[in-house]
């Protein structure tokens, strides 16, 4: 399998509430990936949003059907 950059993996133990764990498990099941994959994807998305906000940009969510655009507020 092609490898990406030669990065050593580190282990993290997560403490989640029952609700958070349920969401994590549900997402993993629906997306057909492991819980670890969901956590990694979440981190990447958070970094992306943080990067945009850090540049003074805004992030919007758009509803095509209702033709509505709402700003994603991260406070």
């Amino acid at each position, binding site marked *: *399998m*092609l*490898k*990406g*950059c*030669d*990065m050593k993996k580190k282990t993290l133990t997560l403490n989640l509430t029952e609700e958070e764990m349920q969401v994590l498990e549900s997402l993993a099941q*629906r*997306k*057909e*990936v*492991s819980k670890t*994959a969901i956590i*990694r*994807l979440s*981190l*990447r*998305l958070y*970094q*992306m949003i943080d*990067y945009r906000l850090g540049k003074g940009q805004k992030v919007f969510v*758009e509803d*095509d059907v209702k033709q509505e655009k709402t700003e994603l507020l991260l406070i």
Partner: protein
Amino acid sequence: MTCAITPVYLLNHSGEVKEAELSAEISIKHLEDWHLRWRPFMIEKLKEIPPEKHPQHQHWNWLKKHQALDGQLSMRSYAVTSDNETQGMMWVRTTGFSQIPGANGKPIVYIEYIESAPWNVCTLQNPVKYRGIGRILLGAAIELSQKEEFKGRIGLHALSQAEPFYHGCGFSDLGVDHNYHNLRYYEMTEQQARQFLTPGETNV
């Protein structure tokens, strides 16, 4: 940080096999080649061909893309080199969502940018210098998708000049995306990706 180099193979204009390398990161050398070889070559060729045949991506700036995308966890880059010269480059995002109806927005690797060196494009140079770069880069994207547990699923918006290439690779054509520059959106399902990497095998 060292990055993986995978030996790959191209065909030159005489049909001879040429050894090449697939790097799992666009490096300074690749950006240098874009700046000092790709761009000047392209600019010279643009003078020879009529405007309607000019590449739609002629204004792409890989340095600018690198500046914007490098360092983000979700982004990965690849380059193909042969004869110590960059032949192709690609940026992918690992936070894409499938647009295939009923796919539940499953995660995909989304190809943000992909380009072959201008001397490998028959409109700009005929015969082309090398063939095979595009499919090698797609193969890299599929293997990354498999590694990420996305089962090989990939997606992209093709510039219209590139639509025949993606039709030929076995992608599903999901139609023109009016939310994205009216570019045609393509995806490879798990089965299509498996077929792409193992052609001729009976895939269950």
